[in-house]
Each structure stands twice: as structure tokens, then as C-alpha cells.
């Protein structure tokens, strides 16, 4: 089965882009994604600030594998597969903690934090040729970090993380450089699941087109609290293909940003401190870049399943597929380390985060509803087989267009075909159709098939 053309129709001549809904429902597609995407791409695991001290660990399920993400006794960040090398039992059964040793509860085989097998009770009963060295904890083929963000890759032959991140590095830096003293993950995570295919969450997380409709109540709330002074912000900005499937929407802040865009939601008291933060950013990074960090929204996808939304606050959202029609989410708040616990700055950030984001926010629940309603609609996929993602193919892609979503799908289809990442799109995708518009010809019917 060819994914390109057959299931993902990228008709540049006519400016039409469609995806077949079988991609959201088929168990075969789901299985193929494990092999073609999750076994070869760099996958986000966690942030180094989650495990600050030697012996600190957290459990994570990443790309379907159970992992322990930890800092060993010597201070080195590591990942082990969370399965005893003896008979397979889950070794670490706490979600987070600090330890010197992982002792399996099944037969008490024990491993130090570097993964070395150190205790096998009744060792004298094993053959003299039994080699303990063969039974250290399994480790993923590759692990690497970018400025505190740790990733795993199950393919020993994968390109280096920095090369993989491609054009996304510029945007990661725009987020991470907001901190004077490094970023940290705030304690407490939003852990929830959605009854939809995981790719709908990828689309939704960088979809500017839905904001005025799905989030009408949020926009009202912003207005009620005296914010949203830039009326045209949601409709301006642009979507960008960052290479290797990574993509971003960058747009002027439509409402308050804790880092350095004051609106009345934060209160008059906060105004001076936010102005000082803006001055610090401009001082450290220059007028243009400093203002860009303070004043713009970024909805960033690190292909295939990491979302960093730098909007009303910064959320790091990891999407883990769990079935063709289900995915789970782990989302955290990323904050500058200098915003100390108990500070007014951290309080503003968390308050702002919660207005929009998370299962109890004023916006995210309606996204979940949209995704689940799409998945239900896919029950009619035989009769209504296509979803459309054509917006903005015949123009320079704005933030309410869908270039950034097509960017995901183009890489997705190409990897699913075993063909590697496609060329990065840098200009208008459908110049022919754009020419039609310029000549004010009627819109083409654009039969994609």
C-alpha cells in the first residue's frame, strides 16, 4: 500500500490536500506506525529538571516501551527499559522517586542506577558459566538531549538529535532563551486520554483555523477580563515547515503572556515586573528577538509526537498512541528556573496556563470534544472517506491556514512508505492555483482523484 498518493493526496497542481480517514481507524496503519515512525524517530522522554539529584527517577511509556528515566548515582542522565532481565517483571513500580537500587519484587534480582545487575539471590545455584554481565538492564539504542530536553531513539542508525531537529532548533531556542537561568518543569502533570487517533491531536495542537469557533468561550473570557487588545492577532502570523516533519505557527500574541506581554488579566501590580522582563529579554537578545520572544505565540510540533505550545504559558505535551482510536497525553508547564516557587511571576504563569490549557481549562476540553467527535464521524469512513487539509495551498500560508498540518502529513506519508523525510516546503505550494486566483478565475473544483 502506498501512503503517498493513495492515502495522503498532495495535489499541488490544483492546490488540494486530502487524507484518507482509514489512517485514523485502521489497526494495520497503527501497527505500521510503530515500525515506520516510532522505531526510527527521536521521541521526547522528559526534562532533566524532573530528575535533579543522583538517584532521582521517573517512569515513562515512550513509543510503546516502558522506560525508567533517571539520574544515576554518579549524576549521569540515563534510560533503562523497565523490565527485569530475569523474567520480565516491571522493575520500578513507582511513578517517581529516588533510589540507589532497583530491586525486582518477583525474585529480588537487583540493579544499581547504572543498570548493572548487582544481586541475584542464591547465586551459587547458577552454572559457573552463567554470566551476570549478560543481564544488565536493557538500554535504548540512542539517548540524547537538547538543552535539557531528553529524547530517545530506538534505531541505532538514526541521525543525531541536532540534525534531526533541523529548523525546529530556532523555535526551541526562542522558547528556552526566555529563561535567564535555564528552564524547569513545574511539579504536577496533566495526565489524560482522548478517544481519538493520536494524529488528530497533532493536527489540533497547531491548527489556527479552529480557534475562533472551538474556543469562542475562551475568546469571550479574554474579552471579559479586558484582554485580547490585538484584534487581528489570531488571523495574522504564519505556518512554517521546519523540515523533518517539524512545523510551527508563529503569530502575534492574541492575549496575555506571562513572560512579557501584559494584559489586564495579570493585574496592574504585575505591570512593572513584566516590563522589566521585557527589558531584560531585549537587553540579552536584541530588540527584534527579545520582542519576538515576549510578544508572539508559537505552536511547535517536534515530529512526530511532541508539542511545545508557547502561548498563554509554555506547555510541553507528549502524545502517546495507545490504540488506533485512542491516545494518552502527558502535559507539563515549562517555566524559567528564576520564577521561584511561591513567586508572583510563577503564580501568573500557572494561572495563565490554567485559563486555556489542560483538562480543566476553558479551552482544551473543547479540543478533546472536537477530536472525539471526528473519530465518531470516521465510522462512516467507507462512505465519507476523505478529510480536507487544503487551506492556504494557493497563497503564502497564514496562521489560520494548514501548511503546518500538511507538513506533518507529508513526512508521515513519506516515512510510512519507507522513503525518508521529504523536501521542505519554502514557497507557495500551489503556484498554478495561485495564478488562477490572481487572474480571478472561479475556484477550481479540484477533483483530487
Amino acid at each position, binding site marked *: 500500500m502506498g501512503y503517498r498518493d493513495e492515502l495522503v493526496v498532495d495535489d499541488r497542481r490544483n492546490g488540494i490536500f486530502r487524507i484518507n480517514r482509514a489512517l485514523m481507524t485502521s489497526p494495520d496503519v497503527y501497527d505500521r506506525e510503530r515500525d515506520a515512525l516510532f522505531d526510527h524517530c527521536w521521541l521526547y522522554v522528559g526534562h532533566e529538571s524532573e530528575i535533579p539529584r543522583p538517584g532521582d527517577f521517573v517512569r515513562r511509556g515512550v513509543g510503546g516501551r516502558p522506560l525508567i528515566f533517571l539520574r544515576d548515582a554518579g549524576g549521569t542522565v540515563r534510560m533503562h527499559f523497565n523490565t527485569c532481565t530475569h523474567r520480565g517483571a516491571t522493575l520500578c513500580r513507582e511513578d517517581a522517586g529516588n533510589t540507589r537500587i532497583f530491586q525486582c519484587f518477583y525474585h529480588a534480582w537487583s540493579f544499581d542506577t547504572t543498570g548493572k545487575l548487582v544481586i541475584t539471590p542464591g547465586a551459587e545455584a547458577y552454572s559457573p558459566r552463567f554470566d551476570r554481565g549478560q543481564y544488565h538492564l536493557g538500554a535504548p539504542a540512542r539517548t540524547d538531549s537538547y538543552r535539557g530536553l531528553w529524547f530517545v531513539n530506538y534505531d541505532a542508525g538514526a541521525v543525531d538529535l541536532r540534525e534531526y531537529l533541523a529548523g525546529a532548533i530556532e523555535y526551541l531556542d526562542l522558547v528556552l532563551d526566555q529563561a535567564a537561568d535555564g528552564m524547569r518543569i513545574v511539579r504536577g502533570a496533566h495526565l489524560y486520554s482522548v478517544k481519538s487517533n493520536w494524529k488528530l491531536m497533532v493536527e489540533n495542537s497547531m491548527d489556527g483555523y479552529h480557534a475562533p469557533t472551538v474556543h469562542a468561550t475562551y475568546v469571550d473570557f479574554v474579552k471579559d477580563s479586558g484582554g485580547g487588545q490585538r484584534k487581528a492577532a489570531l488571523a495574522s502570523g504564519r505556518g512554517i515547515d521546519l523540515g523533518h516533519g517539524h512545523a510551527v505557527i508563529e503569530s502575534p500574541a492574541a492575549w496575555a503572556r506571562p513572560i512579557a506581554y501584559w494584559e489586564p488579566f495579570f493585574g496592574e501590580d504585575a505591570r512593572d515586573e513584566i516590563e522589566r522582563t521585557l527589558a531584560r529579554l531585549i537587553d540579552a537578545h536584541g530588540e527584534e528577538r527579545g520582542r519576538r520572544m515576549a510578544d508572539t505565540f508559537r505552536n511547535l510540533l517536534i515530529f512526530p509526537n511532541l508539542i511545545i505550545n508557547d502561548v498563554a504559558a509554555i506547555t510541553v505535551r507528549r502524545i502517546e498512541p495507545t490504540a488506533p482510536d485512542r491516545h494518552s497525553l502527558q502535559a507539563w508547564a515549562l517555566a524559567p528556573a528564576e520564577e521561584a516557587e511561591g513567586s508572583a511571576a510563577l503564580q501568573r504563569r500557572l494561572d495563565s496556563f490554567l485559563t486555556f490549557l*489542560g483538562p480543566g481549562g476553558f479551552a482544551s476540553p473543547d479540543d478533546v470534544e472536537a477530536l472525539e467527535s471526528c473519530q465518531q464521524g470516521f465510522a462512516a469512513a467507507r462512505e465519507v472517506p476523505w478529510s480536507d487539509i487544503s487551506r492556504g495551498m494557493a497563497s503564502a500560508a497564514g496562521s489560520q491556514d494548514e501548511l503546518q498540518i500538511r507538513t506533518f502529513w507529508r513526512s508521515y506519508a513519506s516515512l510510512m512508505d519507507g522513503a525518508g523525510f521529504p523536501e521542505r516546503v519554502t514557497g507557495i505550494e500551489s503556484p498554478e492555483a495561485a495564478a488562477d486566483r490572481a487572474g480571478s478565475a472561479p475556484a477550481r473544483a479540484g477533483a483530487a482523484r
Partner: protein
Amino acid sequence: MTAPPAVTDRHALRLDVEEFLYQEAALLDAWRLDDWLALFTADARYEVPSTDLPAGEPATALMLISDTRAMIAARVKRLNSRKAHREFPWSRTRRIIGNVQVTSSEGDEIGVAANFAVYRARRDVSVYMGQYRYRLVRDRESFKIRFRRAELDVETLDAHGTLSIIL
């Protein structure tokens, strides 16, 4: 803290508190949110900690909900709208409250703990269970809510997807 009231007074107080909590739950189950909002003091707060950190505090941790009185009002306005899509049409909820305990009494303020199970039905049924912590203040024959916190026992919202209702 003042001396604990006599046994019969304590029972009477607990009955008053129970009745108040049951009435509050009935307002929420009936989606009479404006009436529910009127139960709060002007300085009230409503909190739900993240499921992985039930002891989390809003000044130091990411919560699920951390509402001032103004945010509670905004939440009610949103839920009364036809455009809060997760709750349009409204889900059906049923709240079971038990093990009500008066945990403190200081000045005009009474501390209360109670267990809850909130069932939500829309397409599927999911159950939010946990413990309430209230600080109530006397208001004529009844109470006002100054502080209301719902600590969930569920480890994740995997079964629920969202926390779109009021717990």
C-alpha cells in the same frame, strides 16, 4: 482554635453541614450554576490538584483547576453557554457524598472533609472520586463557601478525557 463544642452541638453542626453539601450537589447535578455561584464568598477559591500530585498547591505546582471567585464566575458563564462544546449538550452527573466530617472550627470558619463520587454520563460513564476539603462560613441559617478543593483519587484522567464539569 476554640474548645470543641459539646457532642450534641457537634452532631447538629455536622447535620447542618451535610444538608448544605447535599443541597450544593443537587444544584450542580441540576446544572443550576448561577444558584451554585451564589453560594461563594467574594474571596472564595476553588481548586483541583493534578492527579499525580494530590497535595499540590497553586503557588508551587501545576493544578487542574485553581480558580479565584472571578474565575469561578467565568467558568459558570462558559458552562452556561451553548459554545462550551464539551458540555453541550450538558452531561448528566450524579454526586454521592459521604463520610462528612467537621475537621475544624475557628472563628466564623468551619473546616469540612467529605468523600465524593461524581458520575458523569455522556456517551460513556466515567467516575471522578476523591475527597472534598471545604472552608465554610456561617451565613444566617446556612453557610457560604470560602474555599472548596476536590482532591482526586484517580491516578490519571484516562477514563475521563477532561474535567469539564464542576467537581
